[in-house]
């Protein structure tokens, strides 16, 4: 939450900020010795990930913690990254000054929203051990790395530096490092294990940053490693301008006073998102202000009126000014497939379902909820499920109970989806972990400690909906598993046991081995569908085979449909059976009549995917008789897919078409809303 820092920035002089920290270090995550260490790791790792993301580098991060003085609880933390590095001149600003950078004013999703970040660590080290923080950083264009010891003068809010110099940065293998930053900090802290530990923080970080390679060496010298499972970097996020719905009075006052715009018209068009030319006119009219007023003349009540117009309290011709929603490309969801990979690499399991909701808006701030559920495997079945909470890709490890995301989980009756839950309330029990990620330009926390999300009806509703959909995916999976086990049994029966019975009985009676077809039909008396989805190492494709057997005594005709991740860019190849695209991500084959005892095979492959992207294909059918191993097509399903498809294509086109008037178009640099990729899957865990 930017609130406190904003207050600091606007109302107080910087001198007081360091003092404020000293007095309020608990707000900033330095309240206990164990937590201080986690916070320090967090700030350093967040910085590393952010820097890499901005520079489009795949991050490789190494964290080492060692105990320097066990009696006095002095710990050394080293965090090294392969980021772009920091130019020598900027090092002391980055590490030594609070509120460095312009993050406060930029509206977009970022990890270190508060901007107090790593400076807090430097300060904490200074306060607890009196020691400076050693920084080594190298940028690619310079031959040597800059080194410097940073301390902090907390009264003057100024960095103190010492031992500045340059050196060649040799790596362990003797080669010199190309670019990156290394921070060595010594602080009073305690290393702990368990749910609230550095290890857990890094594990969670690795789940939501599947593109990062993280190595952690703990104080006992044990190396923990989390692999990079994708080469895809998070989508580059665009900064957006504030949306009128999300503006507070203080902010508006400051924007007005700092404005260099020609007049109110320009001010409105240039500084806000969602304000079209028509909206500008309506806002002016509602606020009863002339659009041509010079900014200098807008004061006091004018600003209040403007704000009221923003919030729809002042009307234009009886209704609030019509604003566009803010663009959502300022958000960087992790996206279903990558969450799936992140979860799968970290937790051993049998089933993963993930879901990224379409972005939404609350109080002028775009947000997006993503959820993931991992089930089975080696997880304990008699304990509450593990809750993995994230805000803008940052793990939340404390205050689980008071967090909106936890409440969203608790609001679902998980019993109907196959998890245990006493009375249908609270965190469910079972061999599962539930992940919730909120991506937002303005994450609202319950307190400055930034560990629990504050209540918000719209966010809650989105999270809840996502849970329900995911729950349905789990239930479907469990049902399918049951059905598949039954089908497998039947196949074992007719393929292995029945022939053995025939053979043995014939042998004992000394008679010829009888024909089995009749018995098989009677035993199965069903149409059975079997499908496999396997990654082909050689071709780097996902191979799918669908088999349909008619074990009934009648002729059967079906249309078979299969899902594929079209939205994620997958393409179907080698599909000799033909068919046609039924809807987004659904292919259909109308099959010839199957004679009794006959079987048919459909084979195809998917390209454009990585290993593990697509592991289960949902098979549906149209036809009068049930097919074991496939789901009867619910036509509402298709309608829903088509409706979504339509919505998305419309959204891409309906970008301000009403603009006209005295202001030239180029004065409105509105970011274009791109159709988000891999948005949502209608088929639960199959994406």
């Amino acid at each position: 939450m930017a609130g406190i820092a904003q207050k600091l920035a606007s109302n107080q002089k910087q001198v007081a900020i360091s003092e404020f920290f000293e007095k309020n270090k608990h707000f900033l995550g330095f309240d206990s010795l164990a937590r201080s260490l986690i916070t320090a790791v967090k700030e350093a790792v967040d910085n590393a990930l952010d820097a890499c993301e901005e520079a489009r580098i795949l991050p490789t991060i190494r964290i080492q913690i060692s105990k320097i003085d066990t009696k006095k609880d002095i710990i050394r933390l080293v965090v090294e990254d392969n980021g772009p590095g920091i130019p020598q001149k900027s090092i002391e600003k980055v590490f030594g000054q609070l509120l460095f950078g312009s993050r406060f004013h930029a509206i977009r999703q970022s990890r270190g929203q508060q901007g107090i970040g790593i400076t807090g660590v430097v300060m904490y080290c200074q306060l607890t051990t009196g020691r400076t923080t050693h920084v080594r950083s190298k940028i690619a264009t310079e031959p040597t790395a800059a080194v410097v010891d940073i301390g902090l003068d907390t009264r003057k809010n100024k960095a103190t530096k010492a031992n500045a110099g340059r050196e060649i940065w040799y790596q362990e293998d003797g080669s010199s490092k190309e670019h990156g930053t290394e921070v060595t900090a010594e602080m009073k802290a305690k290393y702990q294990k368990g749910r609230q530990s550095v290890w857990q923080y890094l594990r969670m970080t690795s789940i939501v940053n599947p593109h990062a390679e993280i190595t952690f060496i703990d104080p006992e010298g044990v190396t923990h490693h989390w692999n990079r499972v994708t080469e895809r970097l998070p989508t580059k996020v665009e900064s957006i301008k504030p949306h009128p719905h999300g503006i507070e009075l203080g902010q508006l006052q400051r924007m007005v006073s700092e404005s260099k715009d020609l007049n109110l018209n320009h001010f409105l068009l240039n500084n806000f998102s969602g304000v079209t030319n028509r909206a500008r006119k309506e806002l002016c009219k509602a606020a009863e202000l002339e659009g041509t007023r010079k900014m200098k003349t807008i004061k006091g009540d004018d600003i209040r009126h403007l704000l009221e117009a923003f919030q729809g309290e002042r009307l234009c011709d009886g209704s609030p000014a019509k604003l566009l929603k803010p663009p959502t490309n300022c958000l960087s969801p992790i996206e279903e497939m990558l969450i799936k990979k992140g979860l799968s690499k970290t937790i051993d399991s049998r089933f993963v379902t993930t879901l990224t909701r379409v972005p939404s808006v609350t109080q002028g701030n775009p947000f997006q909820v993503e959820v993931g559920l991992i089930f089975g495997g080696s997880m304990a079945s008699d304990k509450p499920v593990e809750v993995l909470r994230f805000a803008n890709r940052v793990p939340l490890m404390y205050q689980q109970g008071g967090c909106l995301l936890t409440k969203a989980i608790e609001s679902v009756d998980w019993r109907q989806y196959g998890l245990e839950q006493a009375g249908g309330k609270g965190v469910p029990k079972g061999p599962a972990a539930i992940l919730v990620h909120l991506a937002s330009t303005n994450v609202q926390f319950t307190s400055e400690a930034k560990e629990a999300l504050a209540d918000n009806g719209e966010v809650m509703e989105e999270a809840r909906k996502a849970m329900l959909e995911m729950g349905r995916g789990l239930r479907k999976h469990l049902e399918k598993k049951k059905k598949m086990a039954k089908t497998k049994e039947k196949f074992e029966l007719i393929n292995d046991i029945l022939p053995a019975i025939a053979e043995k009985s014939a042998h004992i009676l000394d008679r010829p081995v009888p024909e089995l077809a009749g018995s098989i039909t009677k035993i199965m008396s069903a149409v059975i569908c079997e499908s496999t989805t396997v990654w082909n190492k050689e071709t780097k494709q996902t191979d799918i085979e669908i088999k349909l057997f008619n074990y009934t005594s009648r002729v059967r005709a079906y249309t078979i449909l299969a899902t594929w991740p079209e939205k994620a860019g997958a393409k179907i190849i080698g599909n000799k059976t033909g068919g046609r695209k039924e809807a987004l991500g659904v292919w259909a084959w109308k099959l010839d009549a199957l004679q009794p005892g006959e079987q048919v095979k459909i084979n195809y492959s998917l390209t454009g995917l990585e290993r593990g992207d697509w592991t289960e294909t949902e098979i549906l059918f149209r036809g009068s008789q049930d097919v074991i191993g496939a789901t009867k097509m619910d036509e509402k399903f298709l309608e829903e897919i088509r409706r979504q498809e339509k919505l998305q294509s419309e959204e891409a086109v309906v970008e301000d078409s009403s603009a006209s008037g005295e202001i030239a178009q180029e004065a409105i640099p509105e970011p274009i809303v791109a159709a988000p990729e891999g948005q949502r899957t209608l088929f639960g865990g199959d994406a």
Partner: protein
Amino acid sequence: MMSRMHSPEETKAAMHEVVAEMYDRIVKGEPPTMTLPVRTKTNIGFDQKLGVYKYGKKKSVRDATSLGSAKQLLRALHVVEFIEEMLDAGKSSTLREMYYISEAWGLGKFGSQNESNNLAEDLEIVTKCLREDFKLRPEEDGARMIGNLTLRERNRRGEWMRINARDDVGDSGYGVPYNVELEKIELLEHDIDFIMAIETGGMFDRLIENGFDEDFRCGLLHLKGQPARSTRRIMKRMSEEWDLPVVVFLDGDPWSFRIFASIAYGAIKTAHISEYLATPSATYLGITADDIVAYDLPSDDLSKKDIEALNAELSDPRFADSWWQEQINMMLELGKKAEQQSLAKYGLDFVTETYLPEKLNELGLA
């Protein structure tokens, strides 16, 4: 006494009928089946002629439409084949050995020994042969016996040995072998008035130590819980061939009632050979529900399972007579059960000097 055993040829022919049922169904284009009597208390009825409970007419068809029953059929075929091999080679094996041999049967292998035991019983029932015909021996060992009775047992060298179960045995008594048929055991002579079957080893040893068998002129038989077939068989033979009364002295709990029912009326699991194993004249001596009250015996509360068992017994045809209904209801009302050895409350000799004489007196045996 007539032997119930069949010749190898008869046995084979009976087994082939079972196999033919499966084979013929496949030829007809149907799932193979095996037809068995229903083996629950809902399908046992009193046979007036034999004086024991036998399976009724209800049949269940095990057909190969589910993996489980199909595997059962396949196992039955393996067992038939195995028995034929033993018959041809003149060998025999224990049920446990058969269970291990089934390891090599691939898909037809047994999941547990219980499965193989049950299947052997299934085959007995449908073929009307005995497991002795199948050359399958039980694992369970028979009972111990003490008392002035003399029998002849053919030992493994084929020689007949004369054994008096009082003078020729140690403190542990005469061990009853698994086969007590005529070709193995002959009952010669006795000087006793009745036979007493005892549930626990502790009580059996107490009576021996106190010289009860001699004082009361009886044969003591240790049942070892639910008695093995051979134990029930030898009890029946002694009762019939020597015309001796049999009294049964058990703990006072629902499970002891079941033991008595299997001795006197026939066990549900072996109702196909009840007339061969059951001793209809056997009498339940104690511990009865009245005894718990009358002798103020130390008792335990009935568990949930005990209560379930008692309720099940109320609807079991073998307990349909008024005496049993009364005993069962009384125990349910008391909510208590007592062990035989709780009689020790009144001293080690109480059972032999007071309790048993009083109970036997009621029956006119002392």
